[in-house]
């Protein structure tokens, strides 16, 4: 029997979230140990007796039994979740309490609660995203380092520090408080957005890794949409932008994970079902007065996805949308994307003018795709020598083998 893909990763997230609620957030590492024990046990038993009918339930029950052992073993040495301490300390109430705390009603919001807890204002956005990936998606430090194309040491430091911050909070985030929920929600959305972008634009050369990151971000976002307080227009917009971009992912990366420029993409590879789902989500996002950057980005993705060919793209609308995005979340990168759209509509010279006029242009100096954009526009203007220089500058800044190959090809095209 084949196990469903990612079963262990997703169960790891569920189990850690539930165990941390019962043990108390300060015992996060004990919860992780118990999860590891549950997996070891599954491995030992399943290989001889076969995979049980319901592997998720089997793992959860094992985690519960291991948790009981841990609670008995540790109760003199540790304190547990404050609101449960008394029931967990007495042998009379221990087992029934653990049983109840593992019940369907109790575990329902555990992952969401953990998601909000990971997005503590004491952590940077990158640290929040990495922590979510580690705790809720079951990625090891090694796997995160390879997904983020970062050194093992620096990711390990970030995760260790983030876990310490999380474990030093007095308790898990209370997701039942309407005001607090709304206040923390933007940070959660942002972390999921970063997670998605790391998959979509990120540096990993492995297509599978990138698709996985996108899927994880989408899975957690739909979890957020299932909560009445989380299902607000901006979350729908975030889910829409993920679906609409993910629909283009198969065409964006070729078989070996190489980047394909928008114009060279095979649009028949777009995932129509995802695109339609994205449009439905976008419609649900279009209620209320709020226009978030996620709304605008989803709309841009929709215009791209709905064009049959690159030359059919409605560039005027895209420029308009970038203007809106600049008003909500101005940045040199957004301005650069706007300039590229202007070039598509009004020619490469106009695009170059727009680029030169970008505020804080110097902040783009180390961004390889800034130089690549200049290269493309110079090439379109017939200035091959200039184009080659810009692509060479981009190549020098390339952050991974995939970008390197892409820029080398562009240099080769300057003939």
């Amino acid at each position, binding site marked *: 029997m*084949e196990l469903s893909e990612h*079963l*262990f990763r997703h*169960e790891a997230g569920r189990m850690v979230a539930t165990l941390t609620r019962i043990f108390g957030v300060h015992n996060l590492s004990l919860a992780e140990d118990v999860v590891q024990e549950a997996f*070891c046990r*599954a491995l*030992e038993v399943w*290989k*001889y007796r076969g995979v049980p009918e319901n592997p998720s339930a089997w793992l959860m029950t094992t985690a519960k039994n291991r948790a009981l052992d841990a609670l008995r073993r540790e109760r003199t040495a540790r304190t547990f979740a404050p609101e449960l301490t008394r029931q967990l300390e007495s042998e009379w109430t221990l087992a029934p309490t653990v049983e109840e705390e593992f019940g369907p009603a109790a575990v329902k919001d555990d992952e969401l609660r953990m998601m909000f807890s990971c997005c503590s204002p004491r952590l940077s956005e990158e640290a929040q995203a990495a922590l979510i990936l580690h705790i809720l998606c079951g990625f*090891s430090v090694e796997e995160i380092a390879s997904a983020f194309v970062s050194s093992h040491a620096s990711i390990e430091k970030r995760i260790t520090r983030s876990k310490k911050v999380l474990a030093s909070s007095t308790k898990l985030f209370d997701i039942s408080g309407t005001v607090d929920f709304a206040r923390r929600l933007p940070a959660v959305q942002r972390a999921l957005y970063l997670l998605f972008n790391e998959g979509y634009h990120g540096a990993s050369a492995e297509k599978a890794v990138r698709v996985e990151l996108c899927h994880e971000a989408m899975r957690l976002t739909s979890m957020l949409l299932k909560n009445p307080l989380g299902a607000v227009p901006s979350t729908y917009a975030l889910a829409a932008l993920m679906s609409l971009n993910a629909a283009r992912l198969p065409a964006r990366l070729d078989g070996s994970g190489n980047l394909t420029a928008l114009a060279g993409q095979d649009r028949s590879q777009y995932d129509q079902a995802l695109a339609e789902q994205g449009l439905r989500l976008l419609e649900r996002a279009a209620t209320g007065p709020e226009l978030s950057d996620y709304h605008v980005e989803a709309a841009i993705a929709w215009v791209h996805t709905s064009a049959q060919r690159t030359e059919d793209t409605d560039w005027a609308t895209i420029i308009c949308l970038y203007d809106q995005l600049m008003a909500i979340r101005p940045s040199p990168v957004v301005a650069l994307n706007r300039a590229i759209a202007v070039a598509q509509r009004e020619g490469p010279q106009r695009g170059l003018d727009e680029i030169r006029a970008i505020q804080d242009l110097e902040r783009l100096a180390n961004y390889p795709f800034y130089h690549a954009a200049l290269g493309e526009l110079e090439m379109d203007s017939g200035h091959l020598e200039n184009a080659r220089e810009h692509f060479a500058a981009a190549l020098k800044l390339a952050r991974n083998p995939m970008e390197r190959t892409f820029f080398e090809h562009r240099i080769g095209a300057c003939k």
Partner: protein
Amino acid sequence: MSEFVFLYRGGSRDGSPAEMQQVMQKWMNWFKELGEKGHVKDRGQPLERAGKLVSGKRKTVTDGPFAEVKDVVGGYTLIVAKNLNEAAELSKGCPILERDGAVEVRPVMKLDM
């Protein structure tokens, strides 16, 4: 055909959830392959790591594990093969070997009666 016991010793217990799942999948594939070729008489049982050791005339009871952690037997399987060489050859596919473990291959003693 003769019978052999595979004793699985040691093997890393670490790994990310994805790695653990991969290891699981490898074990299942290995057993499936052995089974399809008619080599598995009994998949066997996992053994708890803890236990007791009773020894000597004084019947001293000590708590296990009794060997170095890396040598603890975690389970066994009953295998059918032509001879010891074939059994050893079959054991080379065992996923435990990729995780710092070992397979001890022992013929079940035949009675000449």
